[in-house]
């Protein structure tokens, strides 16, 4: 595999010399520490007009969220005709406009809308929609609707564009056990962790012995030239893990937040991200996951719970950021690989569909509803026709939030969607 620029070269040079030459493990440790010395991202500059301390949080709603039961077109009879069992009754919808309303479990979302810190982008999709979870997810991650096989994702390409913080090992932090394709970069793997407790390496010995064991560990894991790709990849990942583990654990340790989060996995991820933001970790993009949106059968209960978790989790996160004084710096973008079929199936569920709404949260969003709801009667194979290309949303985020040039990262120009102030 093509190995990284800056930080990998540094690791290679800094650590290889030691690995290949006479052993000087304490020097090795120092080198690692110098390299891991975090710098304050507020000090760096990229582009006039876009502050450099901006942070993006991507929330992936895995499985295909039923957009029509999330932002409900309650004034459209076609919705009620297509969904005799699953449609949300008009009187239960949390009204947002004369045509649309939120799912009844999204009260917290509505409060955020009212406070002016949330927005919906309707009808987001892409041409020739793919209804495979895996292919469509790949398309969203690589920003390539033609579905060509790619090793790097759109966020990864942003990292590769070498924004000042992007060279940091922790430029991208994913909460989970596997790194999303979106974050894969030529310049190296991002950091992924499940929780700070398990995100550390422990020597077998204690005390003085442990110190020496740590030094020998670095010797065994230090990258060396001309090694087979996978071994080299393993060594780089191990070194990144050990270096970023200290930083992440330190950042998290410092923060004592006073905000209560709901008790579920997604909220746990958001809380961890808030802690890392508070700890001034040099990170541009965080990534959190929700799963379970693939509601082919008995949709209602599951979908209720998920939307409740999404709204209340993001709400707690936002209040946490406000308490920290970081609300200005953070934008949350939530997406799913596709929406679901307009008509319900016979299992009180919905099958794979196409276009769906995206959600954005933050102090700098232009609140309300953006984009346009696709027609519920003018369908292609029973599915909605998208009005907004998801790459327009990416382009807006890259350009107006991250200060990067979207055309380089996305391969061509896309219209901006005016959801940011």
């Amino acid at each position, binding site marked *: 595999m093509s190995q990284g620029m800056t930080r990998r070269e540094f690791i290679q040079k800094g650590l290889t010399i030691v690995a290949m030459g006479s*052993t000087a493990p304490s020097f090795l440790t120092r080198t690692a520490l110098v390299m891991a010395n975090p710098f304050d991202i507020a000090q760096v500059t990229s582009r006039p007009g876009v502050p450099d301390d901006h942070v993006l949080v991507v929330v992936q709603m895995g499985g295909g969220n039923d957009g029509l039961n999330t932002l409900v077109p309650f004034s459209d009879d076609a919705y009620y005709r297509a969904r005799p069992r699953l449609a949300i009754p008009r009187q239960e919808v949390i009204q947002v406009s004369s045509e649309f309303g939120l799912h009844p479990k999204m009260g917290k979302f509505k409060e955020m809308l009212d406070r002016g810190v949330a927005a919906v982008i309707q009808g987001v999709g892409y041409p020739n929609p793919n209804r495979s979870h895996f292919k469509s997810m790949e398309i969203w991650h690589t920003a390539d609707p033609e579905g060509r096989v790619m090793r790097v994702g759109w966020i990864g390409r942003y990292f590769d564009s070498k924004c000042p913080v992007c060279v940091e090992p922790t430029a991208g932090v994913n909460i*989970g056990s596997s790194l999303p394709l979106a974050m894969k970069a030529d310049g190296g793997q991002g950091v992924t962790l499940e929780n700070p407790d398990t995100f*550390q390496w422990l020597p077998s010995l204690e005390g003085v012995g442990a110190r020496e064991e740590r030094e020998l560990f670095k010797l065994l*894991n230090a990258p*060396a030239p001309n090694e087979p790709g996978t071994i080299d990849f393993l060594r780089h990942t191990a070194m990144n893990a050990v270096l970023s583990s200290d930083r992440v654990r330190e950042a998290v340790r410092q923060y004592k937040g006073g905000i209560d989060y709901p008790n579920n996995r997604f909220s746990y991820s958001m809380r961890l991200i808030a802690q890392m933001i508070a700890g001034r970790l040099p990170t541009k993009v965080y990534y959190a996951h929700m799963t379970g949106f693939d509601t082919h059968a008995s949709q209602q209960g599951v979908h209720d719970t998920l939307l409740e978790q999404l709204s209340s989790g993001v709400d707690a996160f936002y209040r946490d950021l406000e308490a920290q004084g970081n609300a200005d710096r953070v934008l949350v973008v939530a997406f799913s690989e596709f929406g679901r079929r307009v008509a319900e199936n*016979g299992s009180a569920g919905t099958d794979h569909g196409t276009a769906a709404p995206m959600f954005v949260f933050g102090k700098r969003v232009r609140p309300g509803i953006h984009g346009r709801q696709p027609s519920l009667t003018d369908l292609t194979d029973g599915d909605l026709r998208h009005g907004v290309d998801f790459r327009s949303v990416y382009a807006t985020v890259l350009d107006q939030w991250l200060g990067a040039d979207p055309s380089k990262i996305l391969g061509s120009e896309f219209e901006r969607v005016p959801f940011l102030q």
Partner: protein
Amino acid sequence: MAQHLAKFVPSATNPWDRTKAAHLLNRAGFGGRGDEVDRMTRLGPDAAVDELVNYNRVPESVSLPDFSSLRTVWESLARLYQQRAPENERFQARVIAIRADNQKFQEVREWWVGRMIQTRRPLQEKMVLFWHGLLVSGRPETRLSENLFIQNELFRRNALGNFKEMISSIAKDPAMLEYLDNESNRKGRPNENFARELLELFTVGIGNYTEQDIKEAARAFTGWTRRGYEFFFNAAQHDDGPKTFLGRTGNLDGSDIIDIIFEQPATLRFLPRRLFEYFAYLRPEESLVEQMAEVFRQNQFQVAPLVRKILSSQAFYSPVAMRSQVKSPAQLVVGTARLLDVDPGQTPALTRAMDLMGQALMFPPNVGGWPRGESWITTATILLRYNFSGLLLTGGMPGVARRPASRPPVPAGAVRMLDGCRTAGEAVNRLTDGLVAGSLDATRRGALVRALGASDPQLSFAPSGADADRLRSALHLLLCSPEYQMA
């Protein structure tokens, strides 16, 4: 160099040796101890593969999980519903049943891990794991742990059997009917979930069907449901109208769909590719896939001859294949437990460790199954994999168990590797031979010598008198190496 499916024939320049025997045991099983590698080396490649493939000749006695009391719990809940018992009574009974099922679920997973560790039929268990990763079912969608066990036994029974029979069985398998919702696939408003994944993930693969084919196949599987732990065909919910699937029209039902799928050239290539990637290396050359498809066709979808062919091929023993595979968490955990003779009492902790590394058995990330190759490795999982070594050597692992004040004994398998060795250098060589097939360079071996407390590899080292903490430290470092993550 073009890879070939032709048989590997040992020669003076490319002999059958311990390295190749160890490779075979790694890939067709969960790795081998020194004495097992020696025995396979003596057998030669043909007899070695024969023994692995013909596992039915090897007796295997295992006790199975007992579901009788759990069944009783579920049945009494069902009775409360039939009798229209008050809601609070039903609620309490439901909580009890779910709790009992969760407990059994954990027991079944641990039973399976234990079976992989203890089996004398490594290839059979390796295939069970393969099928579970391909024909995916699991929690939370599949609720009944007994159904997951029934499916696990199907994979075991038909581990090297016929692929078409496997697909026919899985289409009627209760856990799968639950997992992909076919149990509620009804006439008039079909549910596409199973039909889609049958095509996309289980047989022909993406690009070999249209959205319309999915819709038609979904209609054909209407009424294929279950009653508790068994398949049930509900004729009243079956759509027996005409359908057109992959160009064929008729009053097709689920079996017809499977027949048509097995007439597709893509199906002939699909499973061989997946098997080859499982055993040998990822992204095989297309010419190789074509050769395997031909073998598969000649053998009418029998898996055993195909697996035998792969395990005997030049490609399998080529440099591209040897020590190129990232161990899955199951491979890492089960293999280590077998190699080091880990106490069976540790099985629950081992299962938990595997979960944290990203391979929660019977609880897959999604219908696509597990990651593969380098995708197993992230900054999160590499630390978990390394700390797993700590679990075995110190008794503690973050996220699994707090490190106890006193250390467990050095694992018996490691002590055995060092039997009779006299110097620190020799000790390190024994350990690297036994654990990473010798793939560690001189500098790194030097680090292990230092960990043993020796400044020079020539210094004497006696396993009996050795400082157990030093030995643990060296072992820990070796298990916490990139080399140990590969097989």
